[in-house]
């Protein structure tokens, strides 16, 4: 009788492992084998001008003298409206995965690009952390108060990641830079 329980337990154990393996292998495989068109196709549409506005509110436009200085004017409600709430941030989170895969794509020809890809991956993890905090706040009914704190930082990370991925493609003279610029 004891072995019957043991066998049932092993069955569920292996079934759980199989489900985990299939789900996560799919993600790894799609990142490793995706071609250029597939990668770009995974990028979800976002309003670039709004992303830039939110990011430049704390970054300025980086043009130095005569350029736009950091304003720190946007509050949580405005940012939420501009982004489309938590759903908008979740799109940025998913796009971050694509940005990492785009950086890894360059690595296929230039393994040295790994240093940038790894740093971008850490940035994406940071964005995930901010979005995770907001999801937690949404469950406790504190989304509005937390939005200003975390969302703007998440947007800044995303904005800078797009700039850095573009720069990586430009520096390595990778094909498709113009296409990427249009997609981002």
């Amino acid at each position, binding site marked *: 009788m004891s072995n019957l329980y*043991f*066998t049932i337990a092993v069955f569920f154990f292996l079934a759980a492992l199989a489900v985990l393996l299939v789900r996560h292998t799919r993600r790894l495989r799609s990142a490793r084998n995706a071609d250029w068109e597939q990668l770009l196709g995974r990028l979800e549409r976002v309003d670039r001008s709004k992303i830039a506005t939110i990011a430049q509110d704390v970054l300025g436009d980086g043009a130095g003298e005569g350029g736009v200085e950091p304003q720190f004017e946007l509050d949580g409600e405005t940012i939420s409206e501009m982004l489309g709430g938590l759903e908008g941030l979740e799109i940025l989170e998913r796009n971050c995965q694509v940005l990492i895969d785009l950086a890894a794509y360059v690595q296929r020809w*230039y393994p040295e690009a790994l*240093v940038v890809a790894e*740093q971008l991956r850490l940035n994406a993890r940071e964005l995930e952390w901010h979005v995770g905090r907001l999801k937690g706040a949404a469950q406790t009914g504190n989304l509005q108060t937390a939005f200003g704190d975390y969302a703007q930082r998440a947007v*800044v*990370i995303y904005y*800078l990641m797009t700039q850095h991925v573009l720069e990586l493609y430009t520096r390595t003279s990778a094909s498709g830079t113009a296409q990427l610029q249009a997609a981002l």
Partner: protein
Amino acid sequence: MHLSALDKFLWVAGFIATGILILVLFYRHRARSFPIFTALLALSFVGVPVLYFVNSHWGLRAYYKGYWIRASLDMLIQLGVVYEVASHVFAPLGKWAPDVRHSFIRLVGGSVLVALVLTLLASPARTRLIETVIVRGTFFSSALMVELFVGLVVLSAGAGLPWKTDAARIAQGFGIYSLVSVVYDTLNTWLGWAHQGSTIRLLSEIRITALLGVLAYWIVTLWQEAPEPREMPDSMRIQIFHLQRQVEYDLGRIRGWRKI
């Protein structure tokens, strides 16, 4: 212990395949990247003839002692292989990525716990204590290995860390063999030597055949050369280095805002 012609064939085939794989690892310079994996194969390569010799000259009791020493070493080195594969995935720049270190420790702890609970649930249908211990021990080892390899895939996918081809091949082979071993060890708990000795032998032969398949898979895939990367000009290398610094600096800047 009487060995059938098929047993002898499987033993010799496993010995030869392991030898070929070791040669492949050295010839393709992969032994340097995977020294623990190479050591595991070397132990297996040396262990097979030594155990055969012990069994032929000193009998079953000495064979069991030798078996246990080898199995214990094998288990420890297998854990080393998990760490080696994990290092290739989670330490892409030579040191462990900060966001996965704790998750990996939790993965190892959780896997040991689950494997232990499952092992304690088993009641092998054996009359001798040594046989019970062997069945439980091999089940624990197989369950732990299959958990760890699936765990590595889950962790790396969650963290967005890609697998290098060689590490992926080694992990795939281990994962498949460990899975077959878990099924074998589970069925084995139901069976007793007195009445089902032939079934146990058949299952054992199926497991060794699976191992031969994995060895063949490793020989073929680890022999293949990875595509030659393009040579990166020095100017580009410097620009990439600066870009990496810039990305790192930006992240620090954003983290700094949190403190305000």
